[in-house]
């Protein structure tokens, strides 16, 4: 059952991700990101990281994806359906393929060379408690710094958006 679900989600992720990359229509790319994010969230659930999975849905689908689509709609001529992404020319294709192959080879090398340790798996009751504790004790400083950074970004965005 779990294996089946894993392959299902993996297929969804890879399939939609390839649409994101290969589609000529930028709106298709943007919308297939939805399935990529959703599949990744499913994979997180299979890893018993339910909080992360939900955060993935909430932040990436509800926030970032919407932002991307808004960005596409606002920067291109929005009234037609013929929105094309202009970056699938031959030169770009070859360059991107070379880069991707290099990255893939290095990842495979890394994967085969590292000695993986098989640990006894304990299903956590809930992840949110441990995440909360970790944030408030061990990783308090990075957490606070991230919070301040986001606050600065928020204030800055408001300042830019404000009408003079």
């Amino acid at each position, binding site marked *: 059952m779990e294996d089946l679900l894993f392959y299902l989600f993996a297929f969804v992720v890879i399939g939609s991700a390839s649409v994101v990359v290969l589609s000529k229509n930028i*709106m298709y790319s943007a*919308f297939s990101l939805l399935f990529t994010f959703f599949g990744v969230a499913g994979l997180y659930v299979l890893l018993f990281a339910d909080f992360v999975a939900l955060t993935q*849905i*909430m932040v990436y*689908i509800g926030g970032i994806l919407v932002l991307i*689509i808004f960005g596409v709609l606002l920067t291109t001529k929005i009234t037609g*359906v013929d929105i094309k992404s202009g970056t699938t020319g031959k030169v770009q294709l070859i360059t991107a393929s070379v880069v991707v192959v290099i990255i893939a080879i290095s990842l495979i090398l890394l994967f085969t060379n590292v000695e993986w340790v098989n640990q006894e798996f304990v299903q956590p009751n809930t992840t949110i408690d441990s995440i909360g504790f970790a944030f408030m004790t061990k990783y308090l400083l990075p957490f606070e710094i991230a919070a301040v950074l986001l606050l600065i970004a928020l204030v800055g965005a408001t300042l830019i958006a404000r009408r003079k």
Partner: protein
Amino acid sequence: MEEANFVFNMIGENWIAFAIISLLPMIFLLAYALIAILGELKISAFIQERLGPMRTGPWGIIQPVAEVVKLLQKEDITPDSANKPLFNLAPFIMFAASYAGFAVIPFSSYFVPSGINLGLFFLLAVGSLGIIGLLMGGWASNNKYSLLGGLRAVAQIVSYEIPAAMVILTIAVMAGSLDLQEIIRQQSGWFWNWFVFGGSGGWIKIIFLPFSFIMCIIYIIASLAETNRTPFDIPEGESELVAGYHTEYSGMKFAMFFFAEYANMFIVSAIITIIFFGGWNSPFGDFMGGPIWGVFWFVSKAFVFVFLQIWLRWTLPRLRVDQLMYVSWKVLLPFSFVCFLALSLLVMLK
């Protein structure tokens, strides 16, 4: 601790049980949608001193069935210049997103489709999924009104998620849990233990009662905006945008949008019931308690809020799009921050 799910108790944990569990809310949803459509027709009629549908069945009670049949047999038009794949996909995403919310709604102490620990957070997260469907439908219709409606809907839902999230955060602080069953259990006993009245606890909660009450109102307002109901029905306000994001939809696909809207109405009503009005708890202590009555209490409480949404729709005019943002960012958000601080203080004092 009680067993979470009577279906598993009955037939064990196998795929039949999973199928039943995932279909039960669907059956409920179908029945609910018919009742809600009839309610919308009849309540609007009575408020306006009309009679509403009267010809289909006695007092027109089969009217929703007739409407569904009508929608099903209507021609399914896809505009020529629309983007067909996305145009066809959008209503399904909308509906899937609202149906996903039913996965964690506890209808009774013995039945919750999926009793995950993060139920409240799950509802919040899944609520944001439908936005994509809206945007997709609005854009793929290739219609200026649809696109404007879709953009407005998304801007509205994203903005109103923040006060709603603040309210949910407050409830998480008060209950110390995100598990919906746990939250409901904490509100057991008489109705003054509900979170709308400050939750269970000593008399100190009287001081904080206004804050929890304001929190409840904030959530109700935010939920109206998230389901695009009046006075926040700007995405489909027919005086400006004809029908907003579903202008071009007809037949079955329109029915999906319609169905999703009604499902969303129930979900937000269920959330209000769970986090503020004690879920399946009886309001009078042990009177009419137990899991079977729990379903009754839960559904009837949720229907009260569905009724409230219908009632408001036929009372209020519609806001303008910038005033909508004003309400969200400058009214609801500051108020919810203040209430959050106050109620956190209450939790510390308790």
